[in-house]
């Protein structure tokens, strides 16, 4: 399972790498988010995420013409695969990438380092509390 979790984080990092002035997705925060999703999120979200990552890993043949898993691609081809999957004619592939980007965005967009780089206020802490009485 650790191997799979590393793959999940790796795919998120491909979707949202560092820009010239902004950090990319933080692998530690991403791993933490995936663990929180495992504990808290409904089955549909977890299933969709894992299925989308599996589609990402298995689809280089239809995006860059390489009959191998995405994890075997060179850095250049991997980025090409990522970009082409997001704009692929197949709705299924595009939706799989949208799911990956959505989860990556939950991690990246709340990262204080990213928000600082973009001139945005960091988020305050959350209690998750509700009225019990």
């Amino acid at each position, binding site marked *: 399972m650790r191997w799979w979790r590393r793959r999940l984080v790796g795919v998120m990092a491909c979707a949202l790498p560092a820009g010239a002035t902004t950090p990319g997705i933080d692998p530690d925060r991403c791993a933490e988010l995936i663990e929180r999703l495992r504990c808290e999120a409904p089955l549909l979200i977890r299933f969709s995420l894992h299925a989308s990552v599996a589609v990402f890993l298995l689809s280089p043949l239809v995006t860059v013409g390489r009959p191998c898993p995405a994890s075997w691609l060179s850095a250049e081809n991997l980025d090409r695969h990522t970009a082409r999957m997001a704009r692929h004619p197949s*709705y299924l592939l595009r939706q799989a990438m949208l799911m990956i980007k959505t989860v990556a*965005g939950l991690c990246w967009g709340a990262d204080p380092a990213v928000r600082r780089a973009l001139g945005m206020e960091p988020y305050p802490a959350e209690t998750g509390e509700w009225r019990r009485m």
Partner: protein
Amino acid sequence: MAADVIAPRAHLSFQTGAPVELDVDYVVVGSGAGGAAAAATLARSGRTVCLCERGPWRDPEHYPATVYGAMRDLWADWGTLFARGRSMIPILQASCVGGTTVINSAIVVRTPPTVLAEWAELGLGEVFSETAMGAEQDELERELGVTQMKGRQLMEHSEALLRALRSRDLEGHAIHRNARDCIGSGQCLQGCREGAKTSTNLCWVPEVATRGGTVLSCASVARVLIERGRAVGVSGRFVHPAPARGQRRGGSRFVVRARRGVLVAASATGSAPLLERSGLRLPALGRGWRGQPGAAMLGVYPHEVHMERGTTQGAASLAFSSERFKLESLALPLELLVARVGGAGVDYARALEQAPRMAMWVAAVRAEAQGTVRAGRLGPPVVRYAPTRRDTERLRQGLGRLARLHFDAGAEKVLPGIHGLPGELGPDELTALDSAPVDNRCYTWVLSHLFGGCVMGNDPTRSVVAEDLHVRGVRRLHVVDAACLPTTLGVNPQHTIMAVARIVAGRIANEEGTT
């Protein structure tokens, strides 16, 4: 002045152990715009009311700040409800005390006279006349402290849209909102932590409790109890909002017996499935489901816009109502902007670096499409709905208008987010938008204004409720939310839902029994 949080006298949250039983005059299912409005009206008339809400009761200081927190704590089913058709369109609703009024942009728009005229043509003009709706909406605006946004509340993101509309001599206005002292924290979608938004969990729900009623939160109603053709209460089970791993989600069962009647306001995705689970078999149940789907056009400006500053939605235009779409500014939190900006990988990361210079405006279509909503076998409802080709053409037209308005306001480029078009378009490339594909899978739709499933009307074969909103074939059972609206509105529906619910609840309260 922000709304005061009134301590309720009777609130029951998640319970385990022995079943909970209550006897009241009326039970209301759902605490959003329709349910809370109806419950407060009944409580004011001296009736004892029990308000049942599936989600937990959170106060503003406990609202989440992040989108992840909002999905977990406020959004219904973590935002995983989709309209299934040719494409998957996400449906944004809340599941908490206050319902979607907690996470919407608190936009207050009166029911357009054209819509009331359409209702009158359907034979529904007696109860919901222009005079009755107008008087009710006057009162609602006073009660909820509706104000027009201005100054720091708008900020550049919305001001730019107003400027662009003015430059083309098009109607445009700062939005009226039930948010008295909005400081423009840009957190509407995650719930207003400042407590400025007068969502129903801050006004009418506590009022129900202080007037001797009972609020059941984390209380999922499974069915309406019907005996000898008469609604006599509801039953369900408490559901833990955040169970620890290994902890059971389900808690005690509850039964609320209602001496005078049951009012269902479980939303356009919840009311029809609840009646279906309760054994009703009306031909129109779950049909006539409608929406106002929309999509966004991003503009990238030479200067910083910081759309996260200012109110989430500050400006709107109804200039194209006759063409069945409206335009609005809408600020997305950074986490969601990631999903909206097209592409992935290195070039995409560079595009996201422009986030502080982006402004997002949306076109929402008064769609013609109709779908269905049914009770799902696994819990969440199943919505089948697909915008028609004409709806998609209207959206394309709206997005084209928005792109041109962005350039009028000084944008360098726009990011259309339409599959089949380049990721960025300059001012000389806008003709590409006019020939964009008319395939709803090519657009990033979102559905937030929902109607139908328990449509009102005079024809028993095509409606679930009559004009007084009583459910056909069952005495003392009413539907008082967006599910009963017979048409789309072309504007934000909260104000209409509240007015309709209050008018009907007032009539119910004034009757000795109910229909």
